[in-house]
């Protein structure tokens, strides 16, 4: 059942590729072999989705999928052969990411990852691709991240790859048994520790904190533990408050835990918001804004009253609807 799903996703993914055309490549010197293959895949996809729609009954639909799967395997093999033969071709990298999109796992995907590591490890787009795969929970993500880590020595790439790997291992640890989880967490801590020592650490922590998550929290705490400069410390405490607030808002968190996290965040923010140091003016302003959100815009808080006019100039307020469930929708016609 799961397997079929995946192939169906590949069908849908292809539709997106067909719409987007090979991104970033001007038709200046298109390699006919590769562009020809892309076109063939697109045609096969279009035919397959039509046939799938038309097929009557589960069995017929399965047959369409099996047929499409076989075609796809053949095409991905040829795309892989192209990328292997012409590693310097302007389409080579794109070809390999295309393969990963078409077949998220299995021998073809393995091969694509191996070629990416061998021929494209220093391509900045490969780092981005690894991050995308990690976010999409791709089974190939960890292999690619580790391969790039060992081959791309660029400092920024190293930091980003380490954080991506830490995220992957952290979510693995959350699903693993106790012994395995301990081992994984240890590796996560080591990675976080390495990034915490990097020169861009504070900036990285700020970005990570906005997305939230356990690794972001670990990173912020690790940098905080080793920083002495008051401005960095204030910035990091703001990030820490953000992470705690995001954790409190996650679904599945118990009310008591959410309350504890919110209080910890409010405590940090209160101190930052009260700062009179000129150098920390921006941090104080952001802290005030977050504190306001925590008190008035968070789940569990009484909504602020809204007063204003509709487009016809008639006044009304949120309080007019007391006693009713209200769905408040911020929208625009653009």
């Amino acid at each position, binding site marked *: 059942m799961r397997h079929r799903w995946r192939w169906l996703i590949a069908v849908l993914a292809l539709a997106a590729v067909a719409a987007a055309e090979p991104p970033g490549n001007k038709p200046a010197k298109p390699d006919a072999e590769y562009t020809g293959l892309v076109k063939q895949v697109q045609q096969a996809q279009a035919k397959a989705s039509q046939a799938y729609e038309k097929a009557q009954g589960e069995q017929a639909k399965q047959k369409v999928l099996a047929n499409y799967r076989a075609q796809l395997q053949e095409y991905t093999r040829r795309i892989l052969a192209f990328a292997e033969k012409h590693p310097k071709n302007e389409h080579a990298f794109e070809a390999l990411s295309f393969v990963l999109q078409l077949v998220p796992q299995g021998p073809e995907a393995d091969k694509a990852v191996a070629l990416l590591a061998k021929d494209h490890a220093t391509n900045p787009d490969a780092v981005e691709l690894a991050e995308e795969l990690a976010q999409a929970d791709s089974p190939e993500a960890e292999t690619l991240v580790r391969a790039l880590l060992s081959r791309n020595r660029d400092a920024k790439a190293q930091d980003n790859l380490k954080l991506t790997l830490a995220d992957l291992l952290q979510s693995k640890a959350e699903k693993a048994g106790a012994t395995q989880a301990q081992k994984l967490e240890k590796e996560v801590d080591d990675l976080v520790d390495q990034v915490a020592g990097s020169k861009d650490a504070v900036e990285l922590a700020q970005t990570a904190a906005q997305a939230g998550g356990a690794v972001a929290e670990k990173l912020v705490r690790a940098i905080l533990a080793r920083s002495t400069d008051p401005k960095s410390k204030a910035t990091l405490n703001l990030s820490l408050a953000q992470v705690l607030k995001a954790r409190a808002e996650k679904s599945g968190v118990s009310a008591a835990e959410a309350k504890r996290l919110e209080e910890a965040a409010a405590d940090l923010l209160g101190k930052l918001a009260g700062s009179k140091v000129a150098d920390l003016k921006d941090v104080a302003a952001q802290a005030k804004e977050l504190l306001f959100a925590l008190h008035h815009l968070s789940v569990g808080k009484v909504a602020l009253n809204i007063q204003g006019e509709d487009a016809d100039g008639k006044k009304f307020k949120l309080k007019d609807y007391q006693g009713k469930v*209200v769905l408040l929708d911020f929208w625009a016609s653009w």
Partner: protein
Amino acid sequence: MAMVPHERSLVKKMEGKPFVLLGVDLDNQKSDELAAEKDKKITWRSWFDGKEGPIAKEWQVHGIPALYLLDSQGVIRYKWLGNPGGEVIDKAVEKLVKEAAANK
């Protein structure tokens, strides 16, 4: 705007129940809102807030759609940045409407 058809059916489904859908419109001009309401058959009321208006500023809304679901006591119970999908919204609304009836 992609949510309008679903919202319309939600409003219809909830007719006569203690539920209301209210908008905060961030359009540049009132005429844009009025045109959209006519075009898309938007039957519910909206505050016209305008570009970088005071309501969006106070609620710290930086992108649309942003949705808040309040219970009958005026407490924020759900908050969605980005469209969570019709099913998720409906389920939450139904739960709170049931609660509202039980509280009476």
